[in-house]
């Protein structure tokens, strides 16, 4: 059996781009989100083009809807054809509004549908759209913070201390 190492590398690199989208949204890291896209990328949902405008709009939307968010990737299907790839990625997003004893959680189960192109040694998103399969919004009891470290909605989050790289080809300058 012939092992296609390049295809393995490509799939891992593409998954890392998708994870970087989620990570950047949750940390409100505009530079990190910009780094996942081609300059002329399009966002079908927002009907805008250009990675700077798209990144700013996507993060503004998350900030408007929540105090803290989690974009949780699971089932990822990647179809590579040469220097282009189509992706369907299942995503559960949790947009949490904190409010004392109770919190409001908007849960959306859906899929990211992305088109990517090979750029140098990495991959960049050329088109992004999303499908919401179902959504709920409900109020729950807030649980006290654990004694673990708290996450931050910025690049001062502890994760950026050990992993400032958000894509295989892009590094942050630091905090």
């Amino acid at each position, binding site marked *: 059996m012939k092992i296609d190492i390049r295809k393995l590398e490509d799939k891992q690199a593409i998954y890392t781009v998708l994870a970087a989208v*989620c990570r950047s949204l949750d940390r409100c890291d505009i530079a990190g989100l910009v780094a996942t896209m081609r300059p002329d990328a399009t966002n079908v949902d927002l009907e805008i083009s250009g990675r700077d405008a798209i990144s700013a709009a996507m993060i503004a939307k998350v900030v408007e809807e929540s105090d803290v968010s989690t974009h949780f990737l699971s089932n990822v299907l990647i179809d590579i054809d040469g220097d282009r790839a189509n992706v369907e990625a299942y995503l559960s997003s949790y947009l949490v509004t904190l409010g004392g004893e109770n919190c409001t959680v908007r849960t959306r189960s859906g899929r990211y549908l992305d088109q990517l192109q090979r750029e140098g040694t990495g991959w960049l998103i050329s088109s992004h759209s999303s499908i919401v399969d179902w959504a709920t919004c409900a109020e729950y009891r807030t649980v006290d913070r654990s004694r673990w470290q708290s996450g931050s909605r910025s690049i001062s989050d502890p994760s950026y201390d050990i992993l400032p790289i958000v894509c295989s080809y892009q590094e942050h300058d630091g905090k």
Partner: protein
Amino acid sequence: MTNKLTPMAADDTTYHRALVASDYQALIELQVSYCSAVDRGDIGAIDKSFHHGAIDEHVGITQGFSDRTIGETIVAALSQVAASPMHKVGTVTIKIDDDRAIAETYFLSEHRFSIGGIMSVRLRSGRYLDQCERRSGVWAIVHRVVVDDWAMTDQNRNMRRGPQ
């Protein structure tokens, strides 16, 4: 996780690329197997996720230098607070540098427990921030920080009883 890849590829570059791709998969499986071990209460399997001397800050244990192992500590803590725990991982970012790797792994944990006779589920969203090393061909964690993003409880009187 053991990486069983042997140097059978055509040249060193190809072998190195295959090794890195294989390491990536091994590091993903390290996270998945850890979750499975925690949810099954398998102390030995949890401890296999950590090298000797590893520090798990979220339980305050240095593996091999404390009265309890990391696995014993986690299983003891969970047995006091929850039944049928579920730990799911996703959104994984990994950077591999030869025999060392850094990973951020999102998790969602679901713990079922009783409040005043009413069954509830606590959902917690956080991230494992891990430094990993390959020693004798085996990838495992050498330093773990757990970041807590948010948590909530949902009371449900009609919850079906699951395994204890």
